[in-house]
């Protein structure tokens, strides 16, 4: 066998190995998704309960990279009080103009999670939260619980309402300056 033929054979072998490796990496990566995650919002002031829940959070994350996204429709937040729900949509969130909020980022310590072992793992999340058309970088913590291999992500963080360009006469009075956001997504 001449040198050229040998080189060609070696190169072909390396390319095949690389292709097999790429295929295995692609197949090993898993995307977890839900369209019925839950998000809870509380901006209660001193006297009035201002809280709502949305049960249609659309979320996906990739176990290999930790890339994670959440999307939620503002009109899907349900208050106990219809008048509060109307004011929330019309006067504060302006949900006709800004119908959705989303988060795009990464679970930065995804490599510390053993997806083949059930348990509760602390997670750190970094990314961009867009509410009311305004994007802000956020960092928060939460937990990822694996039950029979199925993940549930739970987290809680605060947002300063005025950081997202939301204004209204009762903010800082009947409505708190900061809203508490609680997230619970079963994938």
């Amino acid at each position, binding site marked *: 066998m001449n040198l050229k033929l040998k080189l060609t054979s070696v190169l072909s072998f390396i390319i095949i190995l690389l292709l097999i490796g790429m295929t295995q990496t692609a197949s090993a990566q898993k995307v977890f998704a839900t*369209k019925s995650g839950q998000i809870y919002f509380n901006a209660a002031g001193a006297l009035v309960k201002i809280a709502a829940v949305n049960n249609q959070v659309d979320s996906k994350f990739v176990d290999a990279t930790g890339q994670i996204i959440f999307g939620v429709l503002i009109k899907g937040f349900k208050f106990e009080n*219809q008048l509060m729900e109307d004011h929330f949509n019309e006067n504060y969130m302006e949900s006709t103009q800004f119908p959705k909020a989303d988060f795009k980022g990464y679970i930065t310590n995804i490599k510390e999670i053993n997806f083949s072992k059930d348990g509760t793992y602390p997670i750190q999340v970094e990314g961009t939260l867009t509410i009311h058309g305004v994007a802000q970088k956020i960092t928060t913590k939460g937990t990822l619980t694996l039950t029979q291999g199925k993940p549930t992500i739970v987290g809680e963080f605060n947002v300063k309402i005025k950081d997202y360009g939301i204004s209204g006469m009762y903010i800082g009075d009947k409505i708190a300056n900061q809203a508490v956001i609680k997230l619970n997504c079963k994938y």
Partner: protein
Amino acid sequence: MSTKNKIIIVIALIAAIAFGIYYYVFVYSSQHRRQVQSETGIVITSDSLIAKYQVDEKLANSLYLNKAVVVTGVILSIDKNQEGKTTLVIGRSDSFSNLSVTMISTAPITQKVGESITIKGLCTGALSDVVITDGVVE
């Protein structure tokens, strides 16, 4: 009329107005929620609604966002959300986007996967799917 009586009437009026506002804001509004089921819905097929959102989301929102819709399509899956309410995915199995419906109650539906269904509910916009809340079977 004496000054004392005038003061009593003014105080009574202020109290009545304050009670009226309190009742409307905290009692009436809690007990009287929007009843999408009793509204006249925009009749459309799931394929058409999904296509309108895929082509021009802004235009579709101007037509359907926060409106009652009556949508007919084929059930792709039936599930429960984290509150126990029935959820449906309606559309086509080969479609990139479908209709994600959360029913108003936890009661199971009689229709099965693969069957056609007509749902009335509130359109809240689109994420990866077009989203309907407060759904009831028509």
